């Protein structure tokens, strides 16, 4: 039987041991149904999830709910929406109780005197042209001003097919404002013309993502294996899709056989009662889903499958480290 120590040298084994018992238990929370943008391709609005549940307005009910989530074993609250920063009291209710990550478009600054260590992921879709076309405005000038030099913030750079050959300029823009960057791919939930990925484009963007990681290792939080998995949708001979996705809400997961999945994972709607199917929208075609966290988690929950060669296990470690850095379980 292959074991971890039989495959790794001392240095890699040390890296493995620093993550092997983290036991991250995440869940996702729609903090609000409201947003200050309406982006074409936002899974939340394109699938009418903003209408799926009536937002709970009583802060005390949020606090009781979060305490219950903590008792359930959740040790990472991922806040999405809508735009969470519209409801900072709710964000604070999470932040004061649990390790918390807040996804935001960056237009509203999270006040650091109130949230000194809150990890913030700022969304950026492509370049200025893509931002205007898909989101109605270029958010970068505002979000970069709000978060310049912030050590607890990074850009979640959603790469579109139009970005091939252009990513280095964006990486440099982000580096120049003293922030780090994590790359993911557009899923194009609203079928915007010219924003569908072709096989060739995915091949090209994988090479470009690898190149950015090689050139800017201190700025880009990523791994080559993650690039491979998210662009090909493949892990070994397995294809990502509904039958494999790990980020399905556990209590309503009726898949049989049930694949390796995130233990106790739930994506809660903002009424604090309704559970969404998965980490993105129910209407998304899983076979073309490019959700970065879902692909990372897919690798992470399949640890034993990677204990088959030195390179496979190193790949797994790098993806797990990337996730742990993005959610502050280990330092950058």
């Amino acid at each position, binding site marked *: 039987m292959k074991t*971890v120590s039989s495959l790794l040298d001392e240095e890699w084994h040390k890296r493995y041991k620093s993550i092997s018992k983290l036991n991250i238990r995440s869940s996702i929370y729609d903090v609000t149904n409201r947003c200050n943008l309406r982006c074409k391709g936002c899974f939340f609005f394109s699938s009418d999830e903003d209408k799926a549940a009536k937002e709970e307005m009583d802060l005390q009910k949020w606090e009781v709910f979060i305490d219950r989530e903590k008792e359930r074993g959740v040790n990472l609250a991922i806040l999405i929406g809508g735009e969470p920063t519209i409801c900072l009291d709710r964000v604070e209710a999470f932040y004061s109780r649990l390790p918390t990550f807040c996804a935001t478009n960056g237009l509203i600054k999270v006040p650091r005197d109130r949230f000194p260590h809150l990890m913030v992921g700022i969304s950026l879709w492509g370049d200025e042209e893509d931002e205007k076309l898909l989101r109605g405005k270029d958010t970068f000038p505002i979000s970069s001003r709000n978060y310049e030099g912030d050590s607890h913030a990074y850009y979640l750079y959603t790469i579109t097919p139009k970005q091939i050959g252009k990513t280095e300029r964006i990486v440099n823009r982000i580096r120049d404002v003293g922030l780090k960057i994590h790359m993911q791919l557009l899923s194009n939930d609203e079928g915007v013309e010219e924003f569908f990925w072709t096989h060739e484009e995915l091949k090209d963007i994988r090479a470009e993502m690898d190149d950015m990681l090689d050139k800017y290792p201190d700025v880009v939080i990523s791994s080559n294996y993650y690039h491979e998995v998210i662009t090909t949708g493949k892990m070994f001979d397995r294809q990502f899709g509904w039958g494999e996705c790990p980020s399905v809400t556990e209590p309503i997961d009726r898949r049989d056989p049930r694949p390796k999945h995130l233990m106790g994972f739930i994506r809660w709607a903002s009424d604090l009662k309704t559970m969404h199917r998965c980490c993105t929208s129910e209407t998304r075609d899983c076979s073309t889903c490019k959700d970065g966290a879902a692909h990372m988690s897919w690798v992470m929950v399949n640890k034993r499958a990677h204990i088959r060669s030195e390179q496979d296990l190193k790949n797994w470690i790098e993806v797990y480290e990337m996730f742990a850095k993005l959610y502050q379980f280990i330092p950058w």
Partner: protein
Amino acid sequence: MAKDVENITIRIAEIMINELKLEDVTPETFDPEIDLVDEVGIDSMDLATVALVVQDEYGIRIDEDDYQKLTTIRFIAEYVQERM
């Protein structure tokens, strides 16, 4: 008593191999002292899968809070033996 733990150890190893489809190992060659998390790569979902079968077979309850203590096959066997 020692024989009981020994028998349970072999059976737990067998359950683990079958349920988790572990390769290149038999119940007899499975080192009962090996760290299941750090060395074999077992995670909490794997443990939950094994725990279900063990619970059914031995008529005991394995509390999820105890998973972190069940780091080797020997510890699992002793845990089972104490509750039988």
